[in-house]
């Protein structure tokens, strides 16, 4: 078979299909999972979608509300410009088609965390459609649409024989993105979410922090045997981490297959909503009605249509930075970094931007990469440094670049450089100053080094023999004394070279 040709199996499915899907451990039958994700992301605005309340996670209950977001009689919504801008930015970063005209609709239902008895959302004319994300594996996951909507408040059910309601979160701006059912494995789902989070963080549209509730994910999943039509879809909610999403999918695939293979139609999966139980690692039926909701959507009369013209689009497009996937490719191809390094450096936009600047100034990407990975990233969360996020580390790219340069020139050796770096961050002083203050300048005085080397060689004929016999590592035993003699400041490279020169070995 020539490269690029694909064999087919007996049912004429391309051979590659045999490599995906779930093989039933009981029957050996291959089932194809069909998975779509609905992801809600909080937009990174200061205030809520339709009122001026300044939302932040963890505020004391009901302290961030107003007549509008508590649904007081007579209150009216007014759209947050920044929310629209961030939503548009997200759409552009995900390659969606942004509609010039869209509208808001009311989604009517009753619940204790829904103050108006309806949610202002977008139904049949969302602000964008299409787009998608290319996963690292090369698979492209298409987006159907993204729409804007306001979040509901929080209902708390674990405080005894009552439910408590906190409306702080009511009215927070969300974008809900819906994928086509292109995902086929738990891993793809995980990758999709990771990529989505990355992209939205990069353009500053959302923090996508599941722990803080700024990203929520529901899964729609069905399975079918290869070559057969799609079957009943099940929805899974209450997934609180990317890990759980993957775990829930894996469990559910197995559960659905087992149900179908049970031979009992009463056991077959039904169209329902299930909750994931992370403790037990299973999904369970939610105890709710079977009937479909009738949300009685209609155009929101309190809000005029949303208009996004070409000029606005152009403005938003110009704010979009180079996205992570593109940067990773560049780091590997142009800077010679490993795929792993590229991955770590692009995990956050602030890190990538910092790295690129430092690399550009110093001309030494590999070194910058090492310093960032081994030192700076580890400083995040270090109580001595006091930075909870990378951008809080008090260091500028050219500071790192100057440190790299000092090490490269031999002025500073690695240990000393580590110390200098920490001091730079803590005190704000520059590298040169600290090297002098701390007396870390490496000794490069060739005469002194030569003297220490000759002294160390005294009485070490055996080592000399070994080195001359072709074992230069025998010199390692002599490095210690030279370092001691130099107060730890001799340039190790230079010491080695000096030894070799003295012994007449190249």
């Amino acid at each position, binding site marked *: 078979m020539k490269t690029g040709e694909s064999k087919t199996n007996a049912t004429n499915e391309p051979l590659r299909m045999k490599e995906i899907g779930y093989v039933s451990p009981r029957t050996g039958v291959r089932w194809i999972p069909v998975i779509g994700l609905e992801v809600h992301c909080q937009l990174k605005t200061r205030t809520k979608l339709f009122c001026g309340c300044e939302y932040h996670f963890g505020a004391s209950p009901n302290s961030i509300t107003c*007549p509008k977001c*508590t*649904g*007081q*009689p*007579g*209150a*009216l*919504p*007014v*759209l947050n410009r920044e929310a629209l801008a961030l939503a548009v930015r997200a759409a552009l970063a995900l390659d969606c088609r942004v509609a010039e005209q869209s509208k808001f609709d*009311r989604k*009517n239902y*009753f*619940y*204790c965390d829904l*103050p*108006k*008895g*309806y949610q202002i959302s977008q139904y049949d004319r969302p602000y964008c459609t299409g787009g998608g994300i290319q996963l690292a594996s090369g698979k492209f996951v298409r987006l159907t649409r993204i729409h804007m909507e306001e979040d509901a408040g929080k209902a708390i059910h674990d405080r005894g024989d009552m*439910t408590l*309601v906190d*409306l702080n979160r009511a009215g927070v701006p969300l974008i809900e993105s819906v994928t086509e059912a292109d995902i086929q494995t738990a891993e793809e789902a995980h990758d999709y979410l990771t990529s989505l989070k990355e992209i939205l963080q990069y353009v500053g549209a959302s923090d996508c922090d599941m722990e803080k509730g700024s990203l929520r994910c529901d899964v729609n999943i069905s399975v079918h045997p290869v070559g057969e039509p799609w079957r009943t879809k099940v929805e899974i909610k209450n997934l609180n981490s990317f890990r759980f999403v993957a775990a829930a999918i894996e469990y559910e695939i197995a559960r659905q297959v087992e149900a179908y293979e049970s031979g009992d139609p009463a056991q077959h999966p039904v169209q329902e909503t299930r909750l994931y139980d992370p403790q037990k690692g299973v999904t369970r039926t939610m105890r709710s009605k079977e009937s479909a909701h*009738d949300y*009685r959507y*209609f155009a929101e*009369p*309190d*809000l*005029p249509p949303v208009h996004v013209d070409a000029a606005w689009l152009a403005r938003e497009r110009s704010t979009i930075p180079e996205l992570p996937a593109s940067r990773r490719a560049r780091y590997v191809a142009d800077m010679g970094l490993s795929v792993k390094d590229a991955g770590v450096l692009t995990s956050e936009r602030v890190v990538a931007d910092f790295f690129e600047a430092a690399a550009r100034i110093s001309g030494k990407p590999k070194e910058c990469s090492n310093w960032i990975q081994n030192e700076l990233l580890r400083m995040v969360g270090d109580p001595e440094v006091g930075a909870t996020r990378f951008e809080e580390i008090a260091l500028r790219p050219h500071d790192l670049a100057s440190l790299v340069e000092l090490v490269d020139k031999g002025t500073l050796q690695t240990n000393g450089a580590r110390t200098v770096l920490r001091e730079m961050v803590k005190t704000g002083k520059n590298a040169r100053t600290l090297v002098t203050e701390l007396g870390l300048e490496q000794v490069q005085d060739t005469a002194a080094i030569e003297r220490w080397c000759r002294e160390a060689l005294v009485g070490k004929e055996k080592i000399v023999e070994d080195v001359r016999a072709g074992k230069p590592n025998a010199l390692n035993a002599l490095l210690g004394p030279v370092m001691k003699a130099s107060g730890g400041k001799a340039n190790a490279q230079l010491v080695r070279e000096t030894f070799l020169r003295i012994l007449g070995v190249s």
Partner: protein
Amino acid sequence: MSDYVSMDAHALRDATVAKKRSARDNVRDAFRVIDALDAKLHAFLTLDRDGAARRAEELDARLARGEEPGPLFGVPVALKANMCLEGVESNCASRMLEGYKAPYTATFVKRLIEAGAIPVGMTNMDEFAMGSSSENSAFGPTRNPWDTGRTPGGSSSGSAVAVAAGMTPIALGSDTGGSVRQPAALCGIHGFKPTYGRVSRYGLIAFGSSLDQVSPFARSVRDVELVTSVLSGSDREDSTCLDEPPYQSEPGGVRGLRVGVPREYFPDVLHGDVRARTQEALDALRALGCEIVPVSLPHTDHAIPTYYVVATAEASSNLARYDGVRFGLRRERGGLQGMFAATREAGFGAEVKRRILLGTYVLSAGYHDAWYGRALKVRTLLRRDFETAFEQCDVVVGPTSPEAAFRLGAKSDDPVAMYLSDILTVPVSLAGLPAISVPCGFVTVEGRELPVGLQIVGPHRGDARVLRVARAFEDATTHATRRAPVNA
């Protein structure tokens, strides 16, 4: 006190600024009239004696300090009970909101207060503004000062009576399908619904979002213009508010103005004498130099169903927030959903329930396109009717209500009969156009003289034109000068 009762808002304001009266005098007189008459008429649900007294004192002190007085300085005003004034009970004449005090003040109320007006209390209405007679109030009906056995109209019943009975020279109502124009006609005063979006709705408790407008009652057109200029203008709290400066009066008369008279505005249900009064009004306009032009608004017959589909749909959604969770009435029964149902069962009256059900029905799956979707398109046709008519005329004129004030209880059993009394006002609401009802004479019904109103409708944003015509008509006639025999 007779002084107070005889003055319109302009005169009262000027007298107060000239220190012939004090703001406290005005408030005192307002409450004297209210206390004398309201046991019988039941115009008010809540009286804010302390708040009014405080404001009056504050105003008098400011004037004494030499501060510039506002255009409504010292004028008592009645607010409909669906308007939010912080700390004062606004219950929409419903058990659902009994005791509810808004945590904020409506934009339009703030503007009144900044202009120097003094809210004295909240007036009775049909529950949640649904009705045309006040008989849907949970707290008993309001009575017409011209004949206390009859309705003053609705839903802004109490505000109309407050002005007609001389309690306050001006009052605010809300007009969704005629709820200010119709009571104005039945009570012999002026009631003006501005172009939709002219006045901010922020703080007006919603019934039909795309139809509701805050609308003033007054005894003179001059007062109507004064109040409208205070209330109107863009408001960043309301996305449907027109981005325009406050209302300004248009000078000039009506010579040469084309007055359109739609043949559809003289339906069979029109009371014979109402038809006669309307005809006389047209004669008066003709005498002023207007050209009377027959026009047609061919889709008028569809206005009532269209209105009731659209308004109830919006209402069913707007009233979903009354669920017992955050404010208002609560009845617990079992779990959360039980609480919703029990609360809404106990809190809403029959008409409100009927409209919520109708609205839910026309939005529900399977019926949505045929009813709500279709009604929105018919609405466009109704608007186009007016646009076409306004190519041939400058204002459209007709009777405001097919009949004068009817007996309390006369229509209670038949909701549709009640709906039909809106037939002349509803098309205007659907199109969002400005319209005023001006007193245009009296008819005799069962031996009592009852007022009749003439409706003057303008094109979109044509508020100034409408009021110019109203002014000319008022100056040329004496209907508006007659006062209700309130001591009867």
